[in-house]
């Protein structure tokens, strides 16, 4: 007997769609200067956040976001069945250490910048599968920890090409529940790893766009839906050039995303004023936009049905130096008001 909730090649439909009970979005200083400032729970100006290293600061960002989401729903950590979290650092240390502090049964995730959506999809499956009442999901990134791990030391005088993106400093957390009031997760489409031969680590948008296109097209065809069935199709961090490539690719598959599409990396910064080149990126980028802006729009009913897609570039500095191309992944989740 085929799995009853499985539809098409890679999509699942939830029988009792889990509810987003609460979210929290913490952002750094530069993000706080951007257009989405009013949607954040807190803007933290100090990149160290009172700690003695950036790594500890990122950990504190994530832990505080998770705790804030719990507090908003009046829940204690002991009441949560699973914590699903991940970040960009080696061995996902920000998530591991935040999980140590919270003491919730924990599954560490790595989907690069797609992690928050990977968590949403898995969390919804855990709840709808009858394995949990509450699942807490979180993801974070920090400009300086990511720069130092993936690119150059932050104080090194190097020039960025126009396609470079700015890693968001921020953390987002989502509390999913079996029942309650809030936007619902109705479907999830788990992506395949897609690699169309991009090698430029300074052009992540180009590496990730084919994965986003693949997941969007699979999702729409699995459900027999059209672009117009969604008020918004929101990708994670493709940036300006990645978005252009995504639109062109989807057109070749016969879908015109056009005005319905937006990208968290383009929304979080003002590209004209903020010197971020092609836009924002990093786990924190889709996390804070989803947990801030998107959650608020859905809760207020200004958006009724949204396809959110996390996009992640699955590379490391070593694979890049060894000449490997950059594989990418995209996970999609349908959110309904």
């Amino acid at each position, binding site marked *: 007997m085929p799995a009853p909730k499985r539809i098409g090649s890679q999509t699942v439909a939830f029988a009792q769609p889990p509810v987003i009970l609460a979210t929290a979005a913490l952002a750094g200083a530069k993000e706080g200067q951007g257009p989405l400032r009013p949607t954040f729970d807190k803007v933290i100006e100090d*990149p*160290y956040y009172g700690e003695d290293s950036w790594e500890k600061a990122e950990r504190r960002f994530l832990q505080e976001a998770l705790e804030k989401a719990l507090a908003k729903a009046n829940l204690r950590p002991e009441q949560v069945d699973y914590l699903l979290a991940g970040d960009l650092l080696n061995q996902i240390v920000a998530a591991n250490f935040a999980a140590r502090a919270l003491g919730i049964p924990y599954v560490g995730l790595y989907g690069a910048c797609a992690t928050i959506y990977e968590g949403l999809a898995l969390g919804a499956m855990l709840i709808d599968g009858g394995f949990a009442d509450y699942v807490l999901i979180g993801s974070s990134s920090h*400009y300086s920890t990511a720069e130092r791990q993936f690119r150059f*030391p*932050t104080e090194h005088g*190097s*020039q960025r*090409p126009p396609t470079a993106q700015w890693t968001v400093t921020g953390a987002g957390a989502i509390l999913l529940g079996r029942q309650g009031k809030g936007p619902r997760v109705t479907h999830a489409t788990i992506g395949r790893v897609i690699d169309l031969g991009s090698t*430029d680590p300074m052009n992540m948008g180009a590496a990730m766009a084919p994965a986003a296109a693949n997941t969007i097209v699979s999702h729409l065809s699995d459900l027999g839906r059209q672009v117009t069935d969604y008020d918004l199709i929101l990708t994670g961090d493709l940036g300006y050039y990645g978005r252009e490539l995504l639109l062109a690719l989807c057109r070749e598959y016969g879908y015109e995303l056009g005005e319905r599409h937006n990208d968290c990396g383009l929304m979080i910064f003002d590209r004209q004023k903020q010197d971020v080149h092609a836009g924002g990126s990093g786990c924190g980028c889709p996390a804070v936009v989803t947990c801030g802006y998107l959650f608020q729009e859905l809760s207020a009913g200004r958006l009724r049905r949204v396809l959110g897609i996390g996009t992640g570039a699955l590379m490391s500095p070593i694979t890049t130096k060894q000449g490997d191309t950059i594989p990418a992944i995209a996970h999609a989740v349908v959110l309904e008001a």
Partner: protein
Amino acid sequence: MLFLKAFLVGGFICLLAQLLMDLTSHKVTPAHVLVGLVTTGAVLSALGLYEPLVKFAGAGATVPLTGFGHLLAQGAIKGAAREGLLGVFRGGVASAAAGITAAVVFGYFAALLFRPKG
């Protein structure tokens, strides 16, 4: 006049490096460009072509990294002439020792005194 020559020659070397970074594939990183410059400087120096540039442009030729390569190569060659094989090993780094030591010492103390802004 000396200043103008230093400006023009030094600026021109930087401009060449900028073109190398901007017009080549992303696989040519700043590190590759710097390694290329120091190697080019050393090779030109060994061929006797860099010293005339230093005579002409002064700091315009010694301040860019090509000048660092020149310093290393001249040190090794003069070491070879003066002390033979031992000088080949000793001369290069010895001639550039001041710059390297400065970078290590100042770098070390900077790391103690400053906290990176990020």
